[in-house]
């Protein structure tokens, strides 16, 4: 079985995003960029499935600017076998990303597509589900545990009330939640080796996908600022405050 792992280059999760003064977006100039954390978990899970002898090859894909090569090299250093960069400087919306991934899946015929449940940039949480719909295949979103068994996969999902397990017929699409695993760090020798692994470059046009946006962002603003209140001196003062709120 082959596993396809789409990864996205996003602002590093430790960086606090700054909204541009002119309201056109978030300032990404000179900001540290990294692999989307949920996608890192997807790469790790793919490697573990391969290490368990249930997959032969892991193909990482990224859709983005030339620099997304770095993100793909990270995936390769972690343990992916080869990579495909679909190069574009446009912001590609989840629907168009899903269409490109569908075209790649048609060529590669993966048994499993593993990707993050959402990117920490636009927080859409759509790509995996859309890809599943376009491929006409089942989806296991917000995965907590993934167990491949023959021609099916059981996915334990993190849902609002707790956990839910579904059984999907392969090929299937699985999106990762935070607690699925803890991604490994790439070792130095593996980082060196990753430089020699194959990385193909394509464009959206190669797949005949129109990436023109359907949504126009007319403004990006800071969220309303909440003012700090007062500090109370001791527990007695806090008790008074809580009683005044009428909840005790």
């Amino acid at each position, binding site marked *: 079985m082959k596993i396809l792992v789409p990864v996205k280059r996003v602002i590093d999760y430790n960086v606090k995003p700054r909204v541009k003064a002119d309201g056109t977006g978030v300032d990404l100039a000179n900001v540290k960029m990294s692999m989307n954390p949920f996608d890192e978990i997807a790469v790790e899970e793919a490697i573990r499935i391969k290490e368990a002898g249930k997959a032969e090859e892991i193909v990482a894909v990224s859709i983005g600017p030339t620099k997304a090569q770095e993100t793909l090299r990270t995936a390769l250093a972690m343990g992916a076998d080869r990579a495909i960069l679909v190069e574009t400087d446009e912001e590609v919306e989840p629907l168009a990303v899903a269409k490109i991934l569908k075209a790649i899946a048609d060529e590669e015929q993966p048994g499993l597509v593993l990707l993050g449940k959402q990117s920490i940039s636009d927080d859409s949480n759509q790509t995996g*589900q859309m890809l599943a719909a376009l491929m006409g295949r089942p989806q296991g979103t917000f995965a907590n545990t993934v167990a491949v068994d023959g021609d099916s996969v059981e996915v334990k999902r993190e849902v609002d009330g*707790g956990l839910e397990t579904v059984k999907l017929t392969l090929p299937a699409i699985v999106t990762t939640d935070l607690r699925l695993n803890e991604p490994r760090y790439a070792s130095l020798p593996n980082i060196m080796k990753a430089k020699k692994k194959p990385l193909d470059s394509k464009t959206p046009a190669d797949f005949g996908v129109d990436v023109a946006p359907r949504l126009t*962002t007319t403004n990006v603003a800071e969220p309303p600022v909440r003012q700090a209140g007062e500090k109370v001196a001791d527990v007695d003062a806090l008790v008074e405050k809580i009683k005044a709120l009428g909840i005790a």
Partner: protein
Amino acid sequence: MNTLVLVEHDNSSVNDATLAVVTAAGKLGEVTALVAGHNCGAVADGAAQIAGVSKVLKADDAAYANGLAENVAPLVAGLMDSYDAFLAPATTSGKNIAPRVAAHLDVMQISDILSVEGGKTFTRPIYAGNAIATVESADPKLVITVRGTAFEKAETTGGSASIEDASGPGDAGISSFVSAEIADGGDRPELASAGVIVSGGRALKDGETFESVITPLADKLGAAIGASRAAVDAGYVPNDYQVGQTGKIVAPEVYIAIGISGAIQHLAGMKDSKVIIAINKDEDAPIFQVADIGLVADLFNAVPELTQKLG
């Protein structure tokens, strides 16, 4: 505009998350509520009474019993010939189904809306709530998920909608429900709809300490219990306690943060609470920048004392 709202339910009653979606849909036009389930007549009856719902569609089929997206999405997509917008709650269930519907319709979904600014214009949070984007759709139909805390809940009574049967392709035959482990909180209110939440962070040391410090205070206030991601990652409490961008987004009347420093991740999940109370021994903790009432103290002394004095 004709809107179709996905009713979230457990085949016996309407989940509260639906009510905010009805309010959001009402800002766009007439509201039809879709109940897809199995033996879900009581849910349809409940949905018909929600104020603002003018019609209920009931799709009663074993294939829809567990809300599998592979089965529900084609049903919705088929019904959308008669509607201009599909709205679902931004719950794990809504997030699972709506993008699949959007792809079937070749529409770009608008996730997690905070407000309706016009017929095709909405605001939504990006970058974990660090920025609010205003977006306008150019698609012929809308597919939307709604953040429950951003809209008033529609009244559960006062409506008298008619109920019609609907049907779709049924079981797609590619997925099946195996089991669910849903936490039983007993008498404790659900995190997503609680009026008061007591939340604990990493400072609580371990699961036993978390329980012995947080639970008595929550009991006294009739509150739900939440936790920061740090406390969940450290294994003090299960994941469904997690409040934050990657957990639950809550907005209770009163949110009490105990031993929580206030990482961006956590603030994104609770900063719309009406009143925030923070207890933390670090006076520079970021949580105090958003707290209405703060107490700088060692929680291991302060919380038991508070619990006792509230008695």
